[in-house]
Each structure stands twice: as structure tokens, then as C-alpha cells.
């Protein structure tokens, strides 16, 4: 009874606090031109009631989360059911196979619109996987990743527009240009750590946009480049629906390629060096790992994928302008990686689908969708801070004297 009363009092206070907090913005609306003040008192009632009930929910969820965390600290098995299932390699492969099969039949079942947004989602899957190399594996926080994406897109747009080069020819060039610029930009900033790196990369992202806006002769400035060719298939004429499906399959293939390559990289010599660097720079260098080269390779490889997928993006929209490559895109890509679970490939895929498809399907909420989107980002971080699926890590266990070394994968416990 006492607890109920206490909770009630707490919620009442919270409700009063939010009434105070939202009062000027939600209740008052001034129109200084016609000199009227509109008092929207009914809104206050909504705020009061809403915050009162949400505070109950909030407390309950937080308590549940903390309970779980405590159990985790005591060392009891706490990986969620999903997580445990995923650790079963056989099952994981089966899940991946089913996903792939679903992906392959998708355009046959759904209409062009659905396929089209799915292409956007897949583009962000590859971007997420690319950024995951830098942020998730090597721990290099990059807030300007969109610059490489834009570089690839402009690379195709310009080459296609001026020299009439085809999609397939430019695709690898886009990747390599991204990679090249990754190295060039990576060099001066290798010494920087953590958040300094973040702000410099943020700067790069903004610089890219400014340069594209001003360098008329190269990029046709703010009005952008239109009528970029869609990918060709032996000169076949394709309708919009057909070419959307075609791009979709190209994207599926690229996603599969990215998954295979990043997965192999992760468990390679250089991949382990990245993870080591992320965990402890000093110890890592002491072990004889060349820090500069390792960091640079992570940065450049991440940029490679962004450049490549940029080419596909340009071919898909057939129109690009500098406004398509803003900080918001970088933030979304970063959110995909963190939300999905850093270092985890499956997590990144899931994160991309949620963040890209959520606003699309939230269209029903019209003007509220960005509000809900923002709130969802905060809530997901609070209730699943390690991401949806935490990264799996190779663990080598020494079992007794039999000199048998078993390989098992365990989630990273942050």
C-alpha cells in the first residue's frame, strides 16, 4: 500500500513537472502580428495525463532492465533467448539462408514501391556494414561517413554525364575513389583520438557538401545532376518496375558480398588487430601492431564500401544534389551501427531495416513521424544500450591437457 502511494505521489510530481516544462511551448501561442495570444489549455490536460501514465510505464521498464543487469553482474547466463539462438552456428546459418531466400523472392511478392524502399534499406545495410568496420571493429568514431557515400555517387554521376561511362565500369572505380580519399583524409588525423576524430570527420562531411555546392564546373552546383543512367543489362530496355527489381538484385548481391568480406575480415589478422586497437591502444601498440597502418586500413576499407554503394545510389535515384548528403545521413548510418549492435553483422542489418523502414511505415503518422523516430532512438538506447544483437567474438578455450582447442563464439560483454 505504501509503495503504491509512493509511486502515485512520484507520478503525480512528474506529471506536474512536465506540465510546468511544456507550458510555454505547448499551451501558449503568440501571434505578434495580429496581437493575439492563444491559450491551448486542453493540451495541458493531455500532457498531464500522458506523463502520469508514462511515468508508471517508465519506472516499470527501468526496474525490469536494472533487474536484468544485476543478474548479469552476478555472472548468471543473461543472454536473451534470441542471442543464445544466434550463437548456435548451425541455426545462424540457417536463419541467414532463410533470410536470403526471402530476399530473393521479395520483389516477386511485393510491388515496385515496396521493392524501391527495400533498395534504400539495403543501401543503408551496406553503409552500416562499411561504417561498422571503422566504428564497430576499430573503434574510430566517424561522423562524416556520408562524404564517401556522396563521393561515390558524384563519381558515377559525373563520369556518366560527361564521358558516358556505364554503371558496371564505374562501380569498382567508385569504391576505389572512396578508398583513395579514405587514405588521403585518414593520414593527417591518425593521431587524433575519439571525439577529436569525430569532430574532424564531421568537418569532412560538411566540407564535401560545401565543395560540391561551389565547384560548378564539376558538380553543376546546388541544382545537382539529373538523368543519370540506371544500370544496364546488355543494352536491354527496361521499364521502371523492371529496373527497380534489377537494382534490387544488384543490391542483394552486394549485401551478400559485403557480409562475406566483412565477416572474413573480422576474423582475419587485420580484423583482430582492429578489435585489439579498439580495446586498448597502448597494449596493442606494445604488442607490435602498426597503429597507423591498422587505423588507416579500417578507415579506407570503410570508405571503399561507401563509395561503391554511392554509385548504386546515384543509379537508383537517377538524380543527386549536394542536399542528399547531409549530416543527418551520417547520423542515421551511425545510429544503424550502434542500434544494431556494434561489431555485429546481423545487428547492423536489423538496425538498418528498423531505421530506414520505420520512417517509411510511420508515414501514416504524417507530421509525428520524426518525433516518434527521435523518441524511439532514445528509448531503444536506454532499454538495449548494447544494441539489438551484440557482436559475437571468437573465444578460444583451453580444455584440460588434451591439447584440444575448441572454438566457441561468445558475445562481447561491454
Amino acid at each position: 500500500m505504501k509503495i503504491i502511494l509512493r509511486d502515485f505521489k512520484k507520478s503525480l510530481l512528474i506529471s506536474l513537472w512536465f506540465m510546468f516544462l511544456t507550458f510555454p511551448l505547448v499551451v501558449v501561442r503568440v501571434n505578434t502580428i495580429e496581437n493575439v495570444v492563444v491559450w491551448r489549455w486542453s493540451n495541458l490536460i493531455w500532457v498531464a495525463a500522458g506523463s502520469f501514465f508514462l511515468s508508471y510505464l517508465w519506472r516499470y521498464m527501468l526496474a525490469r532492465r536494472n533487474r536484468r543487469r544485476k543478474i548479469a553482474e552476478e555472472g548468471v547466463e543473461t543472454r536473451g533467448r534470441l542471442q543464445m539462438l544466434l550463437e548456435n552456428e548451425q541455426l545462424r546459418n540457417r536463419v541467414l539462408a532463410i533470410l536470403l531466400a526471402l530476399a530473393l523472392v521479395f520483389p516477386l511478392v511485393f510491388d515496385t514501391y515496396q521493392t524501391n524502399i527495400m533498395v534504400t534499406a539495403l543501401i543503408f545495410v551496406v553503409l552500416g556494414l562499411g561504417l561498422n568496420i571503422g566504428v564497430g571493429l576499430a573503434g574510430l568514431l566517424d561522423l562524416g561517413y556520408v562524404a564517401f557515400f556522396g563521393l561515390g555517387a558524384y563519381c558515377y554521376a559525373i563520369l556518366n554525364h560527361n564521358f558516358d561511362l556505364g554503371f558496371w565500369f564505374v562501380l569498382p572505380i567508385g569504391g576505389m575513389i572512396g578508398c583513395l580519399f579514405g587514405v588521403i583524409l585518414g593520414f593527417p588525423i591518425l593521431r587524433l583520438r575519439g571525439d577529436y576524430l569525430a569532430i574532424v570527420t564531421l568537418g569532412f562531411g560538411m566540407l564535401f557538401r560545401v565543395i560540391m555546392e561551389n565547384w560548378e564546373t564539376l558538380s553543376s552546383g546546388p541544382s545537382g545532376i539529373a538523368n543519370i543512367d540506371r544500370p544496364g543489362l546488355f543494352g536491354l530496355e527496361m521499364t521502371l518496375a523492371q529496373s527497380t527489381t534489377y537494382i534490387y538484385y544488384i543490391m542483394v548481391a552486394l549485401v551478400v558480398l559485403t557480409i562475406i568480406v566483412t565477416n572474413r575480415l573480422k576474423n582475419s589478422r587485420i580484423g583482430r588487430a582492429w578489435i585489439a586497437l579498439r580495446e586498448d591502444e597502448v597494449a596493442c601498440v606494445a604488442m607490435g601492431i602498426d597503429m597507423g597502418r591498422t587505423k588507416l586500413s579500417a578507415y579506407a576499407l570503410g570508405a571503399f564500401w561507401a563509395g561503391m554503394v554511392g554509385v548504386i545510389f546515384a543509379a537508383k535515384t537517377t538524380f543527386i544534389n549536394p542536399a542528399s548528403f547531409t549530416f543527418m545521413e551520417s547520423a542515421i548510418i551511425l545510429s544503424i551501427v550502434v542500434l544494431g549492435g556494434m561489431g555485429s553483422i546481423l545487428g547492423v542489418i536489423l538496425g538498418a531495416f528498423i531505421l530506414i523502414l520505420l520512417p517509411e511505415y510511420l508515414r501514416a503518422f504524417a507530421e509525428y513521424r520524426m518525433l516518434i523516430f527521435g523518441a524511439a532512438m532514445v528509448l531503444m538506447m536506454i532499454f538495449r544500450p548494447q544494441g539489438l544483437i551484440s557482436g559475437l567474438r571468437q573465444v578460444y578455450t583451453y580444455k584440460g591437457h588434451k591439447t584440444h582447442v575448441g572454438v566457441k563464439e561468445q558475445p562481447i560483454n561491454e
Partner: protein
Amino acid sequence: MKKISMLCATLLLAFSVAVPGVAADTIKLGVAGPHSGDLAPYGIPAMRAAQLVVNQVNEQGGVLGRQVELFIQDEQCNPNVATNAATRLVSDGVHVVMGHICSGATRAALGIYREAGIPVMSPSATNPPLTQSGEYPNFFRTIASDDMQSKLAVDYALANLDVKKVAILHDRGDYGRGFADFARQALEEAGGAEIVLFEGITPGAMDYSSIIQRVRRTGADTLIYGGYHPEASKLVTQMQRRRVNATFISDDGVKDDSFLNVAGSAAEGAYATGPRDLSHLPLNQAAVQAYRSTYGAEPGAFFQEGYAATLALLNAIEKAGTTDYDAVVNSLRTEYVDTPVGRIKFDDKGDAEGVGFSVFKVVDGVFVEMN
């Protein structure tokens, strides 16, 4: 919370629009534009215009005896989202589209409509190549193009104002940059005035006092600005603060009541081009009245153009007697229609004939038509 009540209202509204659509065989009208994000103020009035027209038309029995159904898509003026929205509208099977708002998004989406054979009419996309390049035979607009505006502004300034040195600024966006480029071109062709500065400013920056100082230093007597009203009002406010007396000339994006309200006394004496004042037309008055009584506010940017575009599209279907692409396009090009922007039809390229621009000057806090 407030959001929920608003949500209910939105749903109700959507429902009330959607109900007639349940009846089979409707005329499907797509509406696309920015309805959220920072450019929402430019998209929402046109969307509401379409809703008003459609409600009215449906009450009067619809088009060709069929009810009109609205399909509204938000694309935030983002080209990539615009292609998604366009694909969505195409899969929904719309017959005609009223939109998009921004030139960039329009350009990105137009190819999709062209392939699907859907006529598109924008109330606001003023980028000249959209019609002049001839690449988009399915595109129409109820607003005049940028080059026409720039030329009008420059001609007016050269003829009526004492212009010797001109500074041109723009907001680096496709619209503002276009206006500035065409203004430079028109000035160079006309001769007589010297261009002393041509530069872009960052939209949304905290202040523009440095570039204003630069304008003063160049000794410019005229400042031509291509862009929208938020930056324009900042520019004129700071010109006043810094005691810079150049004549301010700008475009349609600035000829907005928000410019007058925000800039206040600093706006006095500024010039802007914009669609001719047609508030004496009964149809125009009726449209504005309908907006006021429904939404309790003054209609914003591109409301009349959106209203006109919706009317023109529905009229074309009515006159053509079918929703067939060729017939509708043909009827758009041949049949005159009365709209809030005047009695219009469209030329071969898709620009409206009969839509004119004028130069306005701010006198005592209101825009006054100059010619």
C-alpha cells in the same frame, strides 16, 4: 497528450477524405511535397489546397461523375525520398499528380512519372530546365520560371532605379542559386551596371554581418538576393543595423508575408518579384476564404498555385472525358480554366500561359505592386 488529440484530428480528417474513396472507380489524385521537416511551410499550404478543392468537387458530384480520391505523400524535399514517394504514387495507381514542391525533388521524381505516363503539375518548382529542356512532356506548372523572374527584376531595376554597382548573393540552394545566376546573366546582357560581388551565404547561419560589411565595402548600391525569406529578413535587418543603404531586390521566395513580419521596419523599401496580385478575382477570394474558415489562419506559400494546379488537373480530366494520359495532356494544353491565379492554359513545354509576375515594393509594411 496534445499529440494524441492532434493525431485523432488528423486521422478523422484522413478518414473523411478517404471515405468517398471506398466507392469503386474513383479519380485518383496524388499530392506530394514536404509535409514535415524544415521545408514543411512550403508544402503544407499546397496540400491543404488540394484537400479543399477535392472536398468541394466531391460535394458537387465529383469529376466525370466519379469521386476524387487523394493520395498524399510526404517527401521532405529530399530527392531520394521523393523517388520513393513517386514510386508509391505510381503503385497506388494515381491518374494525375499535384506536386512536387522543390525543384530538386521534382526533378528526381519526374522520370518515374514520365515512364508511368502520369501528368504532373507543380505549384512551385520554378527551375527553368524542368520545362525548357523538353525532357519531361508530362510536366506542367502554375508558376513562372526563375529566369523570367530574374529578367523581370533586373529589367525593372535598370529602368526605374539608379543601378550602377550590383552585389548578388544567393543561398547556395538550387532555387536561390538559379535566380542569382539568371540575374547575373540578365545584367551582363543588358550592360550598364557593374557586378561587384557574386557569392553564396550559408542558410541558417547565425548572422550575416561580415558579408554585409563586404557589400558596403564594394560600394554596391543594389543587392540582389536569390533565396528564401528567413535569410532575406536576416540580411535586411542586418543591413539596417549596419547602416548599409543598398536597395534590396529579391525573388518570389521572399515575397511572403513572413518576410514583412520578421524583418519589420527593415523590410521597408525592399523589392521582390512574385505572382501578380490577383486577390480581386472572385475565385481567389473564395479559395482564401475557404482556407481561413477551415484552418483559422492565413494561407501560406504556394496555396493559390496549389489550388490552381488541382483545379487545372481535374478540369483537364473533366474536359478530356477520360483519365487517359494523351487526352489529359492534350486538354491541359488546349482548354482554358479559371483558377485563383487567373484564366490559364499550358504551352507545349508545360509553362502556364496567363500566369504573370510583377515587381513588388514594400511600402508601409505591405507589398505594393509596381507595374
